[in-house]
C-alpha cells in the first residue's frame, strides 16, 4: 500500500519516527470517530433489519397486530403449497442464466473491438456507454415499444430480412428474452471496466507471444483472458446478484403481477406483492421469501468465489 511504502522510505533515511505523526491512541480514537456514521448506519439499517427479517420470517405479521411465532410454516408453505413461488424461482433462474453470460460476452466483445480502434475511440465509447445512462423506466418503455410484436423496430427489421419475428412482449416464452435484451443494451459500465482492464495488459506479452508463433485465438485465450480475469470475476459476481434481484423491469415492462401467464414474475416482485400489495401486508411471509433469496444469492456467490480460485489470476498476488 502507498503509505506503507512511504513509511519505509522514511525509515531508510535513518531518521527516528518524525514527531509530527499522530500518536497511535490518538489515531485509534480519530479513526473510530471518523467512521462512526458508517457504524451507526450499519447497526441501524443493516444489522438490525437483517436479523429482524430473519425473525419475521418465522412469524405471522401484518404490521397492525404484533408478530405471532409460527416456526417454519412460512417456509413450508412457500416450498410445498404456494403455486406462484416456484414459478418466480424458475423465472428468476432462467433470467439470470440468460442475462449474465450474454451481458458479459457482449460487454467484452465490444471492449475488445474498441481496444483495437485508434481513431474516434471517444465517439464509439460514448455511443456504447450512453444507453446505460438511460433511466430504467425509460429503457423499459423504449424496449417494449422497440419489441412491440406488430410495429416494433426490431420485428419490422426482422420481417424485412424475412427472418422469424417472435411475439416478444406477448408470448410467455419471449418475455424474459425481452427483458434480457433491454438490460444487455445497458452494458456500458461493464464495457468500460473491461476496456480499462484490456488497456492494462502489458503490450510486450502479446509481442512475445506473436514471435513465439501464437495465433490470435491463443493470444486471447492465454494472455487476454487471464489478465482480465479479476474484472471478469467482479462483473460476474455483481451482475449475478443484480439479476437474481430483478424487479423494476418486470414490474414496468409487463405488470406487477408478472405479465403473460406469470412468465415475468420474479422473486423480488413476488416478495413485494406479498409485503406491500393491496390486501396482503404479509410481512412474515415476505420475509421468508427474502431469506430464501438471500440464501440463494449467498450460495451462488460462494460458489463463484470458490470457482474463481481456479481461474482468476491476480498479478503478483500482492496487491492491497
Amino acid at each position: 500500500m502507498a503509505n506503507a511504502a512511504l513509511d519505509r522510505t522514511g525509515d531508510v533515511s535513518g531518521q527516528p519516527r518524525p514527531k509530527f505523526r499522530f500518536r497511535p491512541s490518538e489515531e485509534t480514537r480519530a479513526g473510530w470517530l471518523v467512521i462512526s456514521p458508517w457504524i451507526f448506519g450499519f447497526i441501524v439499517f443493516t444489522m438490525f433489519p437483517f436479523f429482524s427479517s430473519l425473525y419475521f420470517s418465522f412469524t405471522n405479521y401484518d404490521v397492525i397486530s404484533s408478530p405471532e411465532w409460527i416456526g417454519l410454516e412460512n417456509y413450508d408453505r412457500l416450498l410445498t403449497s404456494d403455486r406462484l413461488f416456484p414459478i418466480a424461482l424458475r423465472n428468476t433462474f432462467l433470467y439470470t442464466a440468460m442475462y449474465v453470460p450474454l451481458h458479459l460476452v457482449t460487454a467484452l466483445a465490444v471492449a475488445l473491438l474498441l481496444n483495437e480502434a485508434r481513431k474516434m475511440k471517444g465517439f464509439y465509447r460514448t455511443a456504447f456507454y450512453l444507453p446505460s445512462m438511460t433511466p430504467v423506466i425509460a429503457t423499459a418503455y423504449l424496449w417494449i415499444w422497440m419489441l412491440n410484436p406488430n410495429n416494433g423496430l426490431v420485428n419490422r427489421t426482422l420481417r424485412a430480412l424475412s427472418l422469424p419475428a417472435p411475439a416478444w412482449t406477448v408470448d410467455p416464452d419471449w418475455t424474459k428474452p425481452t427483458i434480457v435484451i433491454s438490460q444487455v443494451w445497458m452494458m456500458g459500465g461493464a464495457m468500460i471496466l473491461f476496456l480499462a482492464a484490456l488497456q492494462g495488459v502489458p503490450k510486450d506479452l502479446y509481442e512475445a507471444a506473436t514471435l513465439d508463433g501464437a495465433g490470435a485465438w491463443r493470444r486471447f485465450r492465454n494472455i487476454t483472458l487471464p489478465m482480465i480475469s479479476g474484472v471478469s470475476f467482479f462483473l460476474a459476481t455483481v451482475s449475478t446478484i443484480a439479476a437474481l434481484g430483478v424487479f423494476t423491469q418486470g414490474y414496468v415492462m409487463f405488470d406487477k403481477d408478472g405479465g403473460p401467464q406469470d412468465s415475468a414474475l420474479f422473486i423480488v416482485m413476488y416478495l413485494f406483492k406479498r409485503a406491500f400489495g393491496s390486501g396482503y401486508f404479509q410481512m412474515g411471509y415476505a420475509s421468508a421469501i427474502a431469506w430464501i433469496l438471500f440464501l440463494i444469492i449467498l450460495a451462488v456467490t460462494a460458489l463463484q468465489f470458490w470457482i474463481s480460485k481456479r481461474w482468476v489470476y491476480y498479478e503478483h498476488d500482492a496487491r492491497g
Partner: protein
Amino acid sequence: MAVRNETLPMATSVAGTGHRQSRFSPHSLREPLIYLALTALAVIFCAPFVWLVITSLKPADEIFASNWIPTEWRWDNYADVFNFAPVARWMWNTLVITVLAVVAVLLSSSLVAYGFARIRFRGRGALFALVMATYLLPGAVTMIPTFLIWNELGAVNTFWPLWAGNLFGSAFYIFMLRQFLLTIPQDLVDSARIDGAGFLRIYWTLMLPLIKPALVAVAIFEANAKWDDFMGPLIYLNRPDDYTLALGLGTMKESVQELGTQWSLLMAASVIFTIPMMVLFFLFQRYFMEGVTHSGIKG
C-alpha cells in the same frame, strides 16, 4: 497459474528487441473490418434512441403506420405530457431527493473512506471487510424491516426514507473513494501536520480538494441512481403529488393504456426523463470515465 509459467518467460526473453513494427502493419483488411464492426454496433446501440425520439414526435394516428418519418413533427406531444400528469411537480420532487441524496452520500462516504484509507486504528481491517460484505448484501433482505423502521418514525409519505440512509455512507463509494485517497502522498499529510492541522482539517482542506474528480464521479453515479430509483418511491410514496418522475412514469403505462395506447405520450415522457441524465453525462464525461476506470477493480 499455468498461464504465468507460460507467458512470463517469453515476455522477459523478447522485451525491447524492437519488433514492434510487425504487429501493426497496415497492409491488411483488419483495421477496416474493425471500424465496420464498431460502426454497425454503434448504429444498433443508438437506433433505439432515434426510434424513441421519432415515436415521441409522431401524431397519434401514425404511431402504428409503417412510415419512418412522420408527416408532421408533433411537438405538442411534449406539452401533452405536462397536461396529462403533474410531470413538473414530479421533476421537482426528484430533484430535491437527488440533491439531498448526493450531498449526503458525498460527505459521509468521503469521511468514512478517509478513515479507512489514512488513519491507522485497531480493527480497521476487519471493519473494512464488513463494509465490503454489505456491498454484496441484496437490498431485498433488509427491505421490510427498513420499511417498518421508517413507518415507526412516521416517515412514510415523506422524502426522508429515500435519501437519509445516505448520511451513513455507501459501501461502493467508500471503497472507490478509499482507492483514490490511498494514492495521496504521505508527505503532504506530514507537512499539514507540521502546520498543526488535526484529522478533520486534513480531511477537509487537504484530502477533499485532491480527490475532486472522484467526488464528481460519485456524485454522478448517485444522481443517476436516485433519478432512476423506482422501488424506493414505490414503497414509500403513496400520494400522486409526492411521486418522483420514475414512479410517476412507471405507473403511467397503466393509465395510458386505459386511454388507448398513446405510445407517443409515453415516448415523449421517456425523452423528458432521459435528457437530464444525458446532459449530466456530456458535462462530466471526463470525470465519469475516470471514476469508472479507477474504481479500483484491476485486471
